[in-house]
């Protein structure tokens, strides 16, 4: 990959203004659909809406999903455990930012 120093990189902010289709979401997480379905079933992430019978996800769900995948992989917790940890971490972050 070649760097072009003058070029400005424009990213997307992972907030409630951005949505991913299920396909885009899986791609961004680097996992297959089954794992995303599992995360939704276990309450780790919540789809934002249904569009033509397909889930849509907000940016924050991507942040959560990637964290959950790392926690499950690295700490050998299960999905509900990861979901609990994420909820608590979100709460800590919220309190810190007050």
């Amino acid at each position: 990959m070649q760097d072009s120093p003058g070029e400005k990189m424009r990213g997307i902010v992972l907030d409630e203004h951005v949505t991913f289709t299920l396909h885009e979401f899986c791609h961004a997480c680097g996992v297959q659909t089954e794992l995303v379905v599992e995360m939704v079933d276990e309450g780790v992430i919540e789809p934002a809406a249904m569009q033509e019978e397909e889930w849509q996800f907000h940016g924050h769900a991507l942040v959560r999903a990637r964290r959950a995948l790392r926690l499950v992989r690295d700490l050998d917790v299960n999905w509900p455990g990861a979901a609990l940890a994420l909820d608590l971490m979100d709460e800590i972050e919220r309190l810190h930012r007050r």
Partner: protein
Amino acid sequence: MEFKDYYKILDVARGASPEDVKRAYRRLARKFHPDVSKESDAEERFKEMKEAYEVLKDPEKRSAYDKFGANWKAGQDFQPPPDWRREQAFRGGSSPGGFSGASFDDAGNFSDFFETLFGQGRARGGFSYQAGGARARGEDVNAAITIPLEDAYRGATRTITLDVPEADASGRMTRRQRTLNVKIPQGITPGKRIRLEKQGGSAGDGAPAGDLYLTVEFEPHAFYRVQGSDLYVEIPVTTWEAALGRKIKVPTPGGPVDLKIPPGSNSGKTLRLKGRGLPGKPPGELYVELKVVVPPATEENVRTLYEQLESLDSTNPRARFGVQ
């Protein structure tokens, strides 16, 4: 290459039982997991622990590693013995966790030391999750950027330098410094993440690059406190400005504005300047908290006026305590 003391990394004795090793790893992993830990070197330390555990939890790898004996010290220059044959003994890796393989691995590859002894780490191990035809892709990279509040108010471009994992021509993982100019979108708030597609690590061989995730934090501001897209500022006012209700100038990120103080305002009264916080849909508010400052009664004529006030006004601010 540097010798790695895996026992020291996991803080266990050389004779530790598999259960002890596991317990030590779990305890440290919970403490230093980059998603949990606030330590600045958490990511590096966690990588080391994973590597150490990968070796010490596997009886074969552990006994091979143990052959080097206790005389080796971490950081010592190390070359494997000439009869070391990793290819036969250690093909593939063990599954890292709940799933059978994971291509979302962004924890990085193992050290040269590990790869020389045991082959490539799990990121390129024989269990790609994307067995369904997709190629392996580069690592996702997490980084943080700290910006002044003004950048979030107006939008800006920031130059960042990152250490990005990259595969060289022979497929070996190295790290490369990259400099990127990143657009800071107007109205971004602290803690938000910006995703830059394909700006993460490269896996070589024309495989797609990983993504870059930038967490945005704000530098502390001289007088604004930020909460989401709302801003808070404490504005000192004099006793008479507060009592009489005067018009004062207050700062906003977009420039000073006039603010009419309601007569009889006390310290702590908070006024809202609608939409004067960080831009967005909807824009944040600017909350002005008044802080009444009492001019000192040192000058004789000021003192006289305070005394006149004292004799005229019978307010008891401590009435609810039942004292005078």
